């Protein structure tokens, strides 16, 4: 799979190499991170995505220097920074609850890092002004941080972390406290700031939609392991494992028989007896049986024909599209998402016989 051109051939900014983090000793020990290796390129918007407790925040805290790995190394531009305390790492963090200093003004918050670095005040003033302009907070510079809204606090936290011009910016679920509309706005803002500043962003979230819209590349984590790293498109359309496919978006799982492999694609025979082509996940070990996934929007419900057949169990109208829940003749559910048109309904009712037409390039064979 070719990388998007924007990140191809870039130098590595952060590398986590064989990271193990163990809490406790002996049989009761908990492995928060289990041999995790990630390379994050310069100027990249990189996202660590996973459910809570998957180890993504622990990894982020390790890069920031708040947590030490039990084994493994963290490299910044090829240099091991394991021994550096957080205040000596040219890496800044936007914290989940922003952690703005309540006893300081907006301006003082943004200036804090520069002051600690011992920059002359002739330099600090313009830099703080520049940062506040970047986040559209110039007018509230003298406000106390408990007198600003959540969205404004978010901007200040961002300006504060960007002011010292870090090599890498870490963002720990920074949008989770905002309401839906504000979150959408901030996603675009963040993306803009990343491209304007050219700083490497490492973003942690459990929201798959957020990850897909913002990231250059995503690492999907579960139970202390990295399952798949790739572009949003990779992750969504070519999931390597069941967990990845399930966690990101809605999907259909089908059991199929492997008929033949060659040139990165395979032919599989569905339970209905019909053969279809499928792409293969990296690291797939050939076997007789295979699990394949088909996204609901890559299949159509048809009155006659199709590769699969079944009975309509439920039809749910969503405005932009309609979800048709089907029970397959060979057993198991299948869901089809169909774009709505203005003039007519989807044409199916509960209890109808239905055929499923899977698009030619829609099926992907999972590695597990």
């Amino acid at each position, binding site marked *: 799979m070719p990388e998007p051109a924007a990140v191809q051939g870039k130098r590595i900014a952060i590398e986590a190499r064989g990271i193990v983090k163990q809490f406790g000793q002996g049989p009761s020990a908990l492995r928060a991170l289990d041999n995790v290796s990630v390379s994050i390129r310069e100027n990249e918007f990189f996202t660590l995505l996973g459910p809570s407790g998957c180890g993504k925040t622990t990894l982020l805290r390790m890069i920031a220097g708040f947590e*030490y790995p*039990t*084994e*493994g190394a963290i490299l910044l531009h090829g240099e091991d920074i394991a021994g550096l305390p957080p205040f000596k790492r040219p890496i800044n963090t936007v914290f989940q609850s922003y952690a703005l200093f309540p006893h300081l003004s907006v301006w003082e918050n943004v200036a804090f890092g520069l002051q600690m670095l011992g920059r002359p005040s002739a330099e600090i003033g313009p830099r703080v002004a520049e940062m506040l302009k970047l986040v559209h907070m110039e007018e509230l510079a003298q406000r106390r941080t408990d007198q600003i809204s959540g969205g404004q606090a978010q901007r200040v936290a961002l300006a504060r972390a960007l002011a010292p011009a870090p090599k890498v910016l870490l963002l720990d679920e920074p949008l989770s406290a905002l309401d839906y509309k504000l979150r959408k706005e901030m996603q675009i803002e963040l993306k803009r700031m990343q491209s304007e500043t050219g700083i490497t962003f490492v973003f942690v979230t459990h929201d798959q939609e957020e990850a897909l819209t913002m990231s250059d590349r995503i690492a999907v984590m579960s139970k202390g392991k990295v399952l798949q790293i790739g572009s949003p498109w990779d992750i969504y359309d070519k999931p390597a494992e069941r967990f990845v496919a399930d966690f990101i978006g809605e999907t259909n799982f089908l059991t199929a028989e492997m008929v033949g492999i060659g040139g990165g694609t395979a032919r599989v025979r569905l339970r209905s007896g019909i053969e279809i082509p499928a792409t293969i996940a990296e690291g797939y070990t050939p076997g007789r049986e295979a699990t394949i996934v088909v996204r609901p929007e890559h299949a159509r419900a048809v009155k006659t024909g199709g590769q699969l057949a079944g009975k309509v169990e439920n039809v749910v109208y969503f405005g932009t599209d309609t979800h048709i829940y089907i029970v397959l003749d060979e057993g198991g559910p299948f869901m089809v998402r169909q774009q709505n048109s203005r003039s007519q309904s989807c044409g199916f009712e509960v209890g109808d016989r239905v055929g499923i037409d899977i698009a030619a390039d829609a099926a992907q064979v999972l590695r597990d």
Partner: protein
Amino acid sequence: MASAADVARQEEGRKIRSRWLLSAPALVIVFIAAIGPLLVMLAYSFMTKGDYGDVKPAFSLDGWFSVLFQRDMFDDTLSLADAHLSIVWRSVRLSVITTFATLVLGFPTAYFIATRPRNTREVWVFLVTIPFWTNLLIRTFAMQQVIRNEGILNSLLIWLGIIREPLQIMYTDWAILFGMVYVYLPLMVLPLYASLEKLDFRLIEAGYDLYAGRLAVLRRIILPLVKPGIVAGSILVFIPSLGAYVIPRVLGGGKNLMLGNLIELQFGSGRNWPLGAALSITLMVLVMVAMLFYVRNAARSGGGHG
């Protein structure tokens, strides 16, 4: 790779060292001027009494022995130390009555405050807090002026025609009791208020909805829910009552001693330091037992409510 693990270990070691260094001054001061002396006193209780106070460094159980018994001066026979026992009994009895009386007054008061509108509640609490932080001696002295023979209580009763001669309250157990109830009342009201304030009044509505009368609601819903507050308040009143020294000294005169005064006596005119030390430890043990009762109770009710 050992380097990351090494860093983690060094960091852990540094944290432990700094934690002990930081707590050292407090620990040392508390040891020198509280815990150390208590240990010395424990040792003294097992020594022989000196002729003019102090102790001789020889092991003896006489101090502990005389907590309960006395040896006749002439024929060396043993008998129970009635004087000591009656003082211990007075201490316990007065403390229990004080606790009960403060509860009877304190619970309705705390309930009253907790049911005020939110903005006036703070004012009521403040009114309880002021006496709480007023010097104990001053409050004792104030009580003395109320219950003296010429004090306002007697004046009022005479004026009302209830009595003709002033009641002798000062220098009786009643005086000590009035003093302790007055002084320790805020200690009952404040924890009771703290738990009543958290009471969800929708539960009371639910009680009435399910046909409970006022008394049933109080007994079956409110009291069980604020039990932790009741226990906390009772302990907070009982413990200082048991160890009271200033109140019986000022209001009880020289005759109506409590444990605290008995202890002082041994280090003063009694010149029996081992006995004084043994009595002190006895008092401490009584207090610790009460504390233990409280801690166990708190743990139980804490667990019960999840």
